[in-house]
């Protein structure tokens, strides 16, 4: 109850004309930056940090918080419309968002699903943050290396092996993605590895250009095959059934029934994942999608199912909210973006930690209240721009090819400020295209690439703590439960082909 009163006082701080304006500006800029492939929330927050210098600390952090938050919405736009995730948490959204927009011809509804699920996930995250923020942060601290290892093993196996129909191919691509991620510098010892004498490879393969290529450029190569049929359709004056209005993008009651359960589940799960140090919104969205795989979806996941879009989008927004718990209550950033926000807080003379809620209640609760505002503002702005966004899909395919290629090249360049990023994008695009062409799923490669460094760090730390004993993964209760779930998933995946064969014989 006390927290509820403090939240209302926070709204008193946040609801000034200047703070509302800052929140709105942060929401709009965040949406634009989030939708730009290659920029992402980390670069977006860092780039726009100087804009906040003119404000007082509360206003500045409110704007940065809104910017960070709306980034999560924006990342889904390009993922759904162009199959290019604006940011790494939106990678999973491409799996169902793009097929829903193109194959099922429901681009407006796909965007509306993403917006609504993001809003629901965000609200759940913020309510939990309001009432359990400091407590959650402490729970997150109970997750040591062994717990994180077990959690990440579940995340990787759930998605990688079950995304495709073929577990062996999924395993090949997962392992390939992990090896690519291990190139560069060993994060624990700092020793170079698998750099093959190349100066650029010392820094490893940059994630954003890699994902822009594997998803975006690979998509452009495939898109050329749709050009002729698209031309024929236009020649016949076939009516474009894309509805360019907010009303035409509205979800039906049935859609909402399908959307709400996964959004609620992912909202709770995402908040919890967001609280864990180093897990972040990307892990949250992958976990949300993996959990949805265990539940029934009306359409199969990966074919444009509303449930898939809702699960990933709600989870990543909830994780973004959950990440504020350790940031504010313990001074521990959950991600790179959190670290930039932490730097911003310290720049304005605030010391995040257990005493922040006591020493600076006006600021803390003002920030949490502003996150509620940002969630609402971003939803309104995001819904209003849908008619303009879905016009992108009415552009002829033959014009989209050079435009998307340019966006891929420029986006890949902007992340590294070097042509190395563009070359990585190009190579991963060709590899992604060859994998798709030969029925090897490329999604597990992206998942393992992003999660492998966190997994390796935690696994090695766990072994160092235990002196090399595997017992550490079964002694602590949380780890033990998570490991049993992991082993259950592996066992089921291996037995599934045999079970299916027996079932077919019957």
């Amino acid at each position, binding site marked *: 109850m006390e927290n509820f009163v403090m939240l209302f006082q926070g709204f008193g701080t946040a609801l000034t004309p200047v703070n509302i304006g800052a929140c709105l500006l942060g929401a709009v800029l965040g949406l*634009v*930056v989030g939708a*730009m492939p290659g*920029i992402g929330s980390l670069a977006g927050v860092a*780039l726009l940090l100087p804009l906040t210098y003119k404000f007082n600390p509360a206003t500045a952090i409110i704007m940065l918080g809104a910017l960070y938050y709306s980034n999560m919405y924006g990342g889904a736009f390009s993922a759904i419309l162009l199959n290019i995730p604006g940011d790494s948490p939106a990678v999973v959204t491409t799996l169902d968002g793009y097929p829903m927009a193109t194959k099922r011809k429901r681009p407006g509804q796909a965007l509306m699903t993403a917006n609504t699920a993001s809003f629901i996930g965000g609200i759940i995250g913020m309510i939990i943050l309001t009432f359990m923020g400091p407590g959650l942060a402490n729970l997150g601290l109970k997750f040591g290396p062994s717990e994180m290892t077990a959690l990440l093993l579940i995340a990787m196996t759930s998605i990688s092996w079950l995304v495709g129909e073929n577990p*062996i*191919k999924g*395993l*090949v691509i997962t*392992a*390939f993605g*992990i*090896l690519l991620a*291990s190139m560069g510098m*060993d994060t*624990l*010892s700092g*020793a170079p*590895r*698998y750099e093959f004498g190349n100066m650029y490879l010392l820094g490893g393969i940059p994630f954003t250009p890699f994902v822009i290529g594997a998803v975006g*450029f690979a998509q*452009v*190569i*495939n*898109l*050329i*095959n749709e*050009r002729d049929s698209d031309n024929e359709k236009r020649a016949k004056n076939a009516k474009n059934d894309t509805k360019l209005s907010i009303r035409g993008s509205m979800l039906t009651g049935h859609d909402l029934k399908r959307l709400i359960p996964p959004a609620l589940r992912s909202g709770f799960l995402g908040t919890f994942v967001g609280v864990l140090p180093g897990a972040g919104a990307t892990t949250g969205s992958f976990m949300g999608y993996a959990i949805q795989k265990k539940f029934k979806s009306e359409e199969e996941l990966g074919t444009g199912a509303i449930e898939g879009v809702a699960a990933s989008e709600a989870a990543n927004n909830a994780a973004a909210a959950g990440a504020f718990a350790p940031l504010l209550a313990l001074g521990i950033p959950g991600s790179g973006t959190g670290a930039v926000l932490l730097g911003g807080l310290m720049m304005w003379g605030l010391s995040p930690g257990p005493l922040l809620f006591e020493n600076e209640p006006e600021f803390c609760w003002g920030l949490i209240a502003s996150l509620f505002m940002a969630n609402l503002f971003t939803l309104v702005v995001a819904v209003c721009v849908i008619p303009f966004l879905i016009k992108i899909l009415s552009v002829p395919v*033959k*014009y989209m*090819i*050079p*435009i998307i*290629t*340019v*966006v891929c*090249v*420029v986006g890949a*360049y*902007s992340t590294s*400020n070097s*042509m190395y990023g*563009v*070359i990585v994008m*190009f190579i991963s*695009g*060709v590899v992604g*295209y*060859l*994998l798709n*062409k*030969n*029925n*090897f799923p490329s999604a597990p490669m992206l998942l393992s690439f992003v999660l492998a460094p966190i997994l*390796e760090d935690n*696994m*090695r730390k766990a*072994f*160092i703590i235990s002196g*090399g004993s595997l017992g550490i993964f079964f002694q602590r209760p949380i780890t033990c439960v998570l490991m049993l779930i992991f082993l259950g998933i592996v066992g089921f995946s291996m037995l599934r082909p045999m079970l299916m064969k027996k079932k077919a014989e019957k």
Partner: protein
Amino acid sequence: MKKIGSKQLIPLATALVGIVFAVIGFTQLGFWDKEPKPGFFPSIIAIVLVIASIAAFFQTLKEEEHPKYNKNEVTVILGGLALIVGTFLVGLIPMVFFYVLFWLKVIEKGTPWRDIIIIELIVAVIVLGVFAGWLQVQFPWGMFEMIG
């Protein structure tokens, strides 16, 4: 004997990658010395990759479907490659505009000039307006940098 196509070449390539990573991991990076060394995790994964690749290779031999490649797909890849090579010569911004013009006028024959101008304007808004102007990305200018 069954003909080997790209479906079989992919697991063969990943198996090769696995062997290279495992050998480097065990021989150069170190696997275990009282604690896990830099080669520990990648070496284990490399072995898993080799085993899974061999299984995938035999599995693909049973598959009947073969992927079909067409020259249009190669054109897109070559277009992307030309854009990268051209960037080293004249810089990214001029090359991007030239690439769009070349694609629409030469590859997509018969694109009206009005459409080309509109698309070039969209590209200008994205590249110059957002990335170069607002986000202050410093794009390379190829040999023009020497003039500057």
